[in-house]
Structures are given as structure tokens and as C-alpha cells.
């Protein structure tokens, strides 16, 4: 081994330490970068290459690889669970705003409006000739109608918002697919680009939060991304997703010409789809049933009675409520303006003392006018459903959050950066660097000594 060999070994050591310091500083720099995977240098000694029976020392050190400390199993699980987590987070928000519409823990719910309406009929029955009671009944009817249509409008507004939000998310999906495709191609041409792989994994995770996708790596390190069986990204490019409303006001998601509604299993978009077109659409249907059956029952009885003028309840052309439309809840309103037209009397000449028809209408509160249920029972079932829905969504959110936290911890245990650990590494490699420099300086001295011998 020559003295120049010492210089060479020193150089390999210097380079290796520098590379290790680079990696350490990159780790420190990215300690807070989401999705960053800790990198680590793999050092190996350079063998001497000599054939010898006696021990020979090697030629120094080399950086044989820089690796990502990546746990693909945990990462896959994490993606899946984050997707579910973002589904439940989004869904529980929607369920929370739905239950607020039907919040009967306060005194301002729809329930008191129903009771007040029927009590007003009861009061008209107590004093059928009084215009005061009749006017207050019309007010009570208007209030009830406005609460029902208010609930409808609230739900319809949220549906509109959710559709807009879905459009934004679809645009994000398309951007992400495009970026994944671009990264794929860069990674294929430069397989060692660790940070690009991190970026791509982060994008896949982001995509999963919007909508659950499956990712298959091909032989060249490309990610093919599928939504159900439909490709979003493959070797040839990325494919745009789109969302539109069909004639039933339901969202339809597609990739190219393929409808992917049934392929969506989790993520925010699926939450949007479920909340908007199942949950909210369901409550809207129930509100319509409520408004239709209530209006019909009241109107039928109103039409059978006689008003203060001795005319039939619908003689003026209008009944108590406006005739139910296809959007009965939205359009619910009191049709009568003149309190004299309320049909309190059951007999043609009964006015003003005959209260039998007003009493009959007041009694509708206790009969099964909505699919066999009383109006308040029907309504309290809506309240219970909305509450149970929000409650189970909240439970899922808690469960999913803790699951994701556990997995995140597990991933961090492998892939995360510990600043203390990096500080130790920093000292270690710094000392190695100093020692290597010292070694070169010693080699230099040795050379000086030799050269001095011949002077």
C-alpha cells in the first residue's frame, strides 16, 4: 500500500462523509414535509482487490446506495384508511348540517310549529265566529309552511353547494392524475429520483382522500392508477374525470364515456355522492311526503266544511293550503287570505257557531294522515333518522381518525425524520469528515517526509 493510497482512502472517506452529510441535511430540511420519506446512505467498504494469504486492508469507503426508508405495506393501508377517513369526515359534516335542520332540542324546531298549527284549529273550534282566532290560524299555517319550505330550501342549497364542491374536487383529481403521469415519466427515465417518488406517493395519497383509487406499479416503476376498473393514469397518459347532473338532479361521475358512480367506494367524492343523492335526497322526499299528505288532509277537510259566509271551503277556488305540487315542501303555502273563508262549520247554515269542521281538522293531529302515521310521529322519525345518521358518522370519524393516527405513527416510525437522530448523524458524519481530512493531512506530511529525505 502506497502513501498515495492513504490519500486515496482519505478522499473516499471525505466524499462518503460529504454524501452522508448531504443526506442528513436533506432529512433535516424535510423534517416537516408531508409525505417525505427519510433517506439513508448505505456505506460499504472498498475491498483491496488483492489476492493474498495474509490479511489486506481495503481501499476505503463508498456510498453504495441512498435508500428511502419506505414501508409499502403500511403506506398502502394508510392510503386506504385515509380515504375512508376523509369520506367520514366529509359525510359527518353534511350529516351535522342536516341534523341541525331537524334540531328539536331547541324550542324553535318544526315540531312546535306543527303543534301550534293544530292548536290554532282547536282555538278556532272554541270560538268559530272570531276573526281573531281565524287570523291567528292563518298565521300559524303560514309559519308552518315557511318552516317546511325553509327546511327544503336549506337541503336544496346544500345539494347545490355539494355539486359545486364535487366539480372542484373533480378538477383536482384531473390535476393530480396529470401530475402523477408526468412524475411517472420522469421516474422511468431517472429511477433513482427518490424525492420524485415521494412526491408521487404524496399525490396518490391526496387522490385517495378525494376518491379511493387502486395503484399498480408496472415493471419500470410507473404507477397505473385505477378508479374501480377504469384507468385514470396509465403508461399512455392520464384521463379526465367529469361530473354532471342528470334529469333527476343526481350527480353522475364519468371518466371518458364510462360512468364511474358505482366504482367509487370511498373518499370525499363518495361522501358527496352519498350525502347529496341518498341522504339529503331522502329527507327531501320525506319533506315532500310530509307537505303533500298534510296539505291534502287539511284541504280535503276544509273543502268538506262551510266558511263564515255559508259557502263550501273551496268555493273561492282556493283551499286552506295551496294544492301540493311535485315540489310540495318547497311550494307549501297558505292559499287563504280572508279569515272568513276558513271552513269551521260542518253544516251549510251552521256559521258562525258550528265548530264541527274546525274540530275535525284539529283532530287530524291524532290521525294517521301520513302513510298511516300521525304527523308528529312521522316528523319525529325524521328527527331520529337525522340524529342517528349524524351520530354514526361521528362515531366512524372518531374510529377512522384514531386508525389513521395509529397508521401514521407506524409509518412515521419507519419513514419519519427524527431531528435528534439527525443531530447524532450530523455529529457522526462531521467527525468522520474531520478525521478523513486529518488523514489526508497526515498523508501529506508523510509525503513531505519522504520528499525531504531525498533533498
Amino acid at each position: 500500500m502506497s502513501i498515495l493510497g492513504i490519500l486515496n482512502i482519505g478522499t473516499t472517506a471525505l466524499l462518503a462523509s460529504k454524501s452522508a452529510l448531504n443526506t442528513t441535511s436533506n432529512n433535516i430540511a424535510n423534517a416537516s414535509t408531508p409525505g417525505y420519506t427519510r433517506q439513508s446512505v448505505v456505506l460499504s467498504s472498498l475491498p483491496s482487490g488483492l489476492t493474498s494469504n495474509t490479511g489486506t486492508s481495503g481501499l476505503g469507503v463508498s456510498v453504495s446506495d441512498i435508500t428511502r426508508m419506505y414501508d409499502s405495506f403500511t403506506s398502502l393501508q394508510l392510503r386506504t384508511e385515509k380515504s375512508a377517513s376523509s369520506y367520514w369526515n366529509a359525510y359527518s359534516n353534511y350529516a351535522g348540517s342536516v341534523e341541525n335542520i331537524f334540531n328539536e332540542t331547541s324550542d324553535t324546531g318544526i315540531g312546535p310549529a306543527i303543534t301550534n298549527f293544530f292548536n290554532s284549529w282547536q282555538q278556532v273550534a272554541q270560538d268559530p265566529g272570531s276573526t281573531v282566532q281565524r287570523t291567528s290560524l292563518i298565521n300559524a299555517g303560514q309559519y308552518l309552511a315557511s318552516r317546511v319550505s325553509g327546511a327544503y330550501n336549506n337541503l336544496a342549497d346544500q345539494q347545490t353547494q355539494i355539486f359545486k364542491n364535487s366539480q372542484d374536487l373533480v378538477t383536482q383529481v384531473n390535476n393530480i392524475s396529470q401530475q402523477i403521469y408526468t412524475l411517472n415519466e420522469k421516474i422511468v427515465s431517472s429511477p433513482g429520483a427518490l424525492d420524485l417518488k415521494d412526491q408521487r406517493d404524496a399525490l396518490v395519497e391526496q387522490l385517495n382522500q378525494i376518491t379511493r383509487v387502486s395503484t399498480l406499479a408496472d415493471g419500470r416503476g410507473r404507477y397505473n392508477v385505477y378508479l374501480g376498473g377504469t384507468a385514470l393514469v396509465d403508461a399512455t397518459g392520464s384521463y379526465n374525470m367529469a361530473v354532471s347532473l342528470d334529469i333527476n338532479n343526481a350527480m353522475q361521475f364519468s371518466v371518458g364515456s364510462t360512468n364511474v358512480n358505482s366504482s367509487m367506494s370511498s373518499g370525499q367524492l363518495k361522501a358527496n355522492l352519498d350525502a347529496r343523492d341518498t341522504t339529503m335526497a331522502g329527507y327531501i322526499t320525506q319533506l315532500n311526503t310530509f307537505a303533500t299528505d298534510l296539505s291534502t288532509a287539511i284541504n280535503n277537510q276544509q273543502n268538506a266544511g262551510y266558511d263564515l259566509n255559508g259557502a263550501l271551503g273551496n268555493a273561492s277556488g282556493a283551499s286552506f293550503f295551496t294544492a301540493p305540487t311535485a315540489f310540495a315542501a318547497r311550494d307549501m303555502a297558505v292559499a287563504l287570505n280572508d279569515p272568513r273563508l276558513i271552513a269551521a262549520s260542518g253544516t251549510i247554515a251552521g256559521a258562525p257557531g258550528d265548530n264541527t269542521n274546525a274540530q275535525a281538522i284539529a283532530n287530524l293531529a291524532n290521525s294517521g294522515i301520513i302513510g298511516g302515521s300521525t304527523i308528529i310521529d312521522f316528523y319525529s322519525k325524521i328527527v331520529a333518522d337525522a340524529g342517528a345518521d349524524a351520530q354514526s358518522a361521528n362515531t366512524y370519524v372518531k374510529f377512522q381518525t384514531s386508525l389513521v393516527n395509529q397508521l401514521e405513527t407506524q409509518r412515521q416510525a419507519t419513514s419519519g425524520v427524527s431531528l435528534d437522530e439527525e443531530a447524532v448523524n450530523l455529529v457522526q458524519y462531521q467527525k468522520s469528515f474531520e478525521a478523513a481530512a486529518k488523514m489526508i493531512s497526515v498523508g501529506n506530511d508523510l509525503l513531505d517526509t519522504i520528499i525531504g529525505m531525498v533533498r
Partner: protein
Amino acid sequence: MRITTQMMYSQFNADLQTTMDSIYRTDEQIATGKKLNRPSDDPAAVSSITTEKAQLGTFAGYQDAIGSATLLLKATNSSLQNLHTLITNARQIGTNATSASPQDLATYVSMIDNVIQSAMGVANTKVGDKYIFSGYGTDQPAVDTATGTLTATSTANLISMQINTGVSVNVNVTAAGLISSAAPLDNTTVIGAMTSLRTAIQANDQAGIHTALTALDTLSASVLTSQAEIGVRMNRMDLEKQYLTARDSDVTNSVSDKLMLSDVEIAKLITDAQQKQTSLQSLRSITSGFLQTSLFDFLK
């Protein structure tokens, strides 16, 4: 397990969130005094609260009806009481007239005229703006004060009010059939019998006076029977009222048990809140202490 920097940050974040969330919920409960603030806090309970509140509303409606009905029945009762007194007076006048000298008969006629006027007044009793003896024609007097016969709008219909689910009471007595009738008047009604008494006294027709007095006897009994009936109805209403009051307080308690915090629960919540505050404080102090330093701080 390797513990990394981000792990610590996110763990502290999650812990802070959890603690803050539970403090928020406790604060909300204390501030509103309610255990349940949204349906999802307990869907089944909130659903039954909805039904029970509707029940309470219905009870209030029935209590209201009982109030109106009681007012009408009381007025009817005291009117019938007056009518009974008037019948007694008429009988007294009739009896005296049988033994009176012919020159005094005119006085008796004018006395009976007064009684007839008063009886018409009773028939046209108003409560608020309603004529209570007019049947369905509550906006018009029951009896035409010129003729003593029923007005065209006066009917024999009974008005019933619902005072509880499935329980109705009649809240009126009609002038028709008892106090007066359509023309011609006869001895079957109070004013009819009084009018024939007047005619008989004027004509000094002893047999006629006798017939009218017998008719008034029968009518006096009828008025008493009507009064007794009203007594029964008022009694019924008292019972329903007691029942409704009891039910009201049961249901109110049931709603309040489900919805509102009891004193004990409030005390417990306050203790909880204090504990949570303490744990939040310590969490914060540990977090700030721990996260501010790393090994780098100790390297030269």
C-alpha cells in the same frame, strides 16, 4: 419504536384537539343547561322529546279549550239559575192573580210583562260577543224581544268542544225548545207558558192560569235538569283538567329528565371541566417545553 419529530407534533396536535373538543362539549352543556344539544347526542331521546313536546302542546290546547268551555258553562248555569228564579216569580204572580180582585189584574199583567222581558234577557245572554242560547247562530240574539219567539238565526244545535283526545262536551243549552219556540208560542216553553199566563190573567181566565202554572211547574223541573247536566259537564271538565295537569307534569318531567341537566349533573360537569382545564394546561406546558428543544440546542 422510533419516535420522530413529526410524530410528536401530530400526537400533541391530536391530543390538544381531543381535549379542546371535550372542553367545548362540556362548556356547551353547561352554557345551555342541556344534556342534548343536537339530535345526534341521543337520537332516540330527541325523537321522543319531539313527540312529548307535541303532547305538551296538545295538553295546553285542551287546557285552553277547558277554560273556554268552563266560561261558557258557568255563564249558562247562572243564566239558567236566573231563569229558574223568574219561573218561580211568574208562578207566584200567577198564584196571587187567581185570588186577586179584577181591578188589580192589570198590575199583575204588568208584573208578568216584566218577568217575560227578563226571561227574554236571559235567553239573549252574551259571553264576549257570543249569544250563548242561540245554538249555531251565536252572532244573533236567540229570542226576538218584540214577539218572544225565536229569531230566524236561532237553532237547536248543541256546540261541542273537545277537551281531551276523544272527549267532547257540549258547552251550550239552546233557547229553542226550553225558553222559546217559533210562533205560535205554547205552554212547552218558558216564554210561551209565561205569555199564556199573561193572557189568562188579563182575561181573568182561571182555568187558563191554572194550565199555565202547571206548565211552568214542568218547565221549572226542566231548567233544574239542565242545570244538573251542566253541573255534570263541569265536573267532567274538572276531572279532565286534573288529568291533563297530572299528565302535563309527568311529560314535562320526562322531557326535562332527557333534555336538561340536573343540579347534580351540572356539579359533575363543572368538576369535569376543571379537570379538563388542568389536563389542557399541563398538556400545553409539556408540549411547549418538549418541542422547543432538540439535541441541536446542545451542540456547539
